[in-house]
C-alpha cells in the first residue's frame, strides 16, 4: 500500500467537517477541555509539591551520610530501634579519627524549646547544637549575619543562628542580628539568619526554616549532656563513591561499637535520597489516584466524542458511499474519521492547556509555586490525540466497513 493521501488534505477535510457543526463541536470539545484541565492541573500540582520538597531537603546534601540511632524512614517494627544505644559525642570524635575518606564530620543534637523575643513566644522550636562544620555538610547558607564559627564552639559562646521562619514570626520587621533572645531559660545572641529553604513540613518532613542553630558546646551546658542522642553528619571527600564511603562508615561504626560479626548494626545510616524515595512513594500513590480520578473525566469526555462520531458517521452514510464510489479505500475512510475525532480532541487539548496555564497562575499566586512544564504540555497533547483515536476508532471502523452500494442508497 502506497502512502495514505496527503496529511494536509486529511486535516483540511477533518476541519471542514468540524466547522460544519460548530456548536456540536464546541460542546463535544468541552468534555475534553475539562478532562485535560483536570489531568494537567493534577500533574502540575504534583510537580510543584515534588519540586518544593526536593528543594527543601536538598539542604541535607546528596553526598552526606547521617549516622543516627534510628533510620529516618522505616517500615515494620518501631521497637527494634527503641532499645538501641544513643549515639554519643565521643563516638563522633572516634569516627572523626577513624574515617580516611571523610571531608568533614559534624555531630549534632537537638531539643525542642520555647523561644522568646521581648514579649513574643514561639513554642516547641527545634534547637540544634552543631559545629562550624555544618557549613561544609549542608548547602544552606546565612542570608544575613554569619554562621557559627570554630571559636564560638570552642569558647561555648551563647550565640545562635535562626531560620527564616523564626525571623519572620518572632522579629517581624525588626533586624534580628545582635538581638538577645531566650532559648528555653537561656539568653542567646542572634548572629545570623539562614536563607529560606522552603518548607517540606507539609509532608511531615522536617521544616528547615523553623529551627535555630547554636554551638554544640553551649547546647550541652544549657540543655544538659546527659542521655543525649547525637546525629553525626559525615561528608565524603571529593571523588569518593558514596556507596564505598557508606561501607567505610558502617565498618568504622561497628569497630567503635565493638560489634561481633554475627551482630546486626545497632545504628542507622541515613541520607537525603531516602527522604526523596519515601516522598516519591507516597506522592506516587497520590498522583496515581489523582490521575485515575481526573482520567475518568477525560474518559467521559472521550465517550462524548465517540457518541458524536457515531452520529457523524450515520449522518454522512451517503457521503461515505460517494467517497468509496470515487475510490476511497477502507483505510482512507478510517483515517478520515480518526483525523476528525483526533482533531476535535486536539482542539480540546489545546484549549485545556491554555485554561490550565490560567489555573496554574492562580495556584502559583494563592497556594504554592507551580509551573506547567513542557513535558506536561507534550503529554497532555499526546493524551488528547490518543483519546481522539480511542474514541473515534469504533465509529471510524464502522464507517470504513460500509458497503458502497448500500451507503449510496441511504437517505
Amino acid at each position, binding site marked *: 500500500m502506497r502512502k495514505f*493521501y496527503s496529511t494536509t488534505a486529511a486535516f483540511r477535510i477533518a476541519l471542514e*467537517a468540524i466547522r460544519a457543526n460548530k456548536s456540536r463541536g464546541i460542546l463535544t470539545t468541552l468534555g475534553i477541555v475539562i478532562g485535560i484541565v483536570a489531568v494537567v492541573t493534577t500533574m502540575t500540582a504534583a510537580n510543584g509539591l515534588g519540586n518544593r520538597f526536593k528543594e527543601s531537603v536538598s539542604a541535607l546534601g546528596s553526598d552526606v551520610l547521617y549516622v543516627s540511632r534510628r533510620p529516618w524512614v522505616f517500615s515494620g517494627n518501631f521497637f527494634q530501634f527503641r532499645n538501641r544505644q544513643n549515639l554519643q559525642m565521643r563516638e563522633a570524635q572516634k569516627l572523626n579519627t577513624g574515617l580516611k575518606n571523610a571531608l568533614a564530620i559534624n555531630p549534632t543534637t537537638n531539643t525542642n524549646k520555647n523561644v522568646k523575643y521581648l514579649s513574643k513566644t514561639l513554642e516547641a522550636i527545634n534547637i540544634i547544637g552543631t559545629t562550624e562544620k555544618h557549613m561544609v555538610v549542608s548547602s544552606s547558607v546565612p542570608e544575613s549575619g554569619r554562621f557559627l564559627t570554630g571559636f564560638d564552639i570552642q569558647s561555648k559562646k551563647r550565640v545562635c543562628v535562626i531560620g527564616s521562619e523564626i525571623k519572620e514570626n518572632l522579629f517581624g520587621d525588626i533586624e534580628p542580628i545582635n538581638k538577645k533572645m531566650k532559648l528555653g531559660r537561656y539568653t542567646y545572641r542572634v548572629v545570623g539568619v539562614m536563607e529560606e529553604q522552603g518548607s517540606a513540613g507539609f509532608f511531615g518532613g522536617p521544616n528547615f526554616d523553623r529551627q535555630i542553630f547554636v554551638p554544640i558546646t553551649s547546647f550541652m551546658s544549657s540543655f544538659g549532656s546527659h542521655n543525649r542522642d547525637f546525629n553525626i553528619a559525615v561528608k565524603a571527600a571529593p571523588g569518593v563513591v558514596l556507596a564505598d564511603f557508606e561501607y567505610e562508615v558502617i565498618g568504622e561504626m561497628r569497630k567503635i561499637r565493638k560489634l561481633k560479626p554475627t551482630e546486626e548494626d545497632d545504628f542507622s545510616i541515613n541520607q537525603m535520597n531516602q527522604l526523596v524515595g519515601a516522598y516519591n512513594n507516597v506522592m506516587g500513590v497520590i498522583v496515581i489516584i489523582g490521575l485515575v480520578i481526573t482520567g475518568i473525566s477525560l474518559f467521559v469526555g472521550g465517550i462524548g466524542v465517540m457518541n458524536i462520531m457515531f452520529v457523524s458517521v450515520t449522518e454522512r452514510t451517503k457521503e461515505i458511499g*460517494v467517497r468509496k464510489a*470515487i*475510490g*476511497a*479505500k477502507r483505510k482512507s475512510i478510517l483515517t478520515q474519521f480518526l483525523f476528525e475525532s483526533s482533531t476535535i480532541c486536539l482542539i480540546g487539548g489545546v484549549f485545556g492547556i491554555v485554561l490550565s496555564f490560567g489555573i496554574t497562575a492562580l495556584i502559583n499566586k494563592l497556594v504554592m509555586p507551580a509551573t506547567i512544564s513542557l513535558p506536561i504540555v507534550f503529554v497532555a497533547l499526546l493524551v488528547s490525540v490518543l483519546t481522539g483515536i480511542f474514541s473515534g476508532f469504533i465509529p471510524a471502523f464502522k464507517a470504513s466497513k460500509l458497503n458502497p*452500494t448500500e451507503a449510496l442508497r441511504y437517505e
Partner: protein
Amino acid sequence: MALNIQNISKKYVMGIEEVHALKDVSLKIDNNEYVAIMGPSGSGKSTMMNILGCLDIPTTGTYHLEDEDVSEMDDDQLADVRNRKIGFVFQTFNLIPRADVFHNVELPLIYGNIVPQKRKVMTDEAIEKVGLTDRAHHKPNELSGGQRQRVAIARALVNNPAIIFADEPTGNLDSVTGREIMGILDGLHRAGNTIILVTHEKEIAEHAHRIIWLRDGLIESDTVTQRAAATMEIVNN
C-alpha cells in the same frame, strides 16, 4: 475492448427469499461507445450498473474491465479500480456539501495518491472542461442544479477514467438544464470517452448510440439507435 462480462448472475437474499437480480447475462462494450441501459424498475438495471461500475461483484460469471478481471476483487482492490478507471455521475449529484468546487473535483486524485502540484493542474483542467472555472471556490449550495451536475461531471472525468457512468444524470434537473448536461456528455463522447448511461427516459437514451433494454434480469434487446445509424452513415459516406 472497454468491458466484457460473461455469464454474469447476481443473487440477493431478501429475508428468506432469494432474488435473482441478473440471470446469466453477457455483454461487451467497446472503447468510445455511448451506451444507454434502460428497463423498468426491478429489471436488474441498478444491479447491472453496480456491477459494471465495480461497486459490487457478481455471484457467478466473469467481468473484465479493460485488461483486469474484477469479478473476484476485494473491497479495496475494487476501490482502486473505480478510482483509476471509472467516473460516476449520480442523479442527486452527491457532492460533498462542505467542500468547494475545487476540492470536490480534486477528491478522486487525493484518493489516487496524486502529488499536490499535479492534482492542481488536473483539477483546474477538469473544471475548465465543464466551464466552471469562475466558480471554482464556491460551495455546492451556492450553485444551481445544472452547475452542481457539471461539478459532478468534472469530478467523474478528473482522473481520465476508461468509462464514465451516468446514473439518471438529468433526473433532478429541468428539461433545459437536462439538455445542457446531455450536451456535455455528448461532447465527452466525441472527445473519445466511453459513456454508459442509465435512464428510464427514452429521450435521454436517444443520446446514446446503443440501447440495452433489461427485463427480469435478462437483456431483452440490444439495439443501435437512429442517431448511431446517422453517424455511421456519415462515416460510410
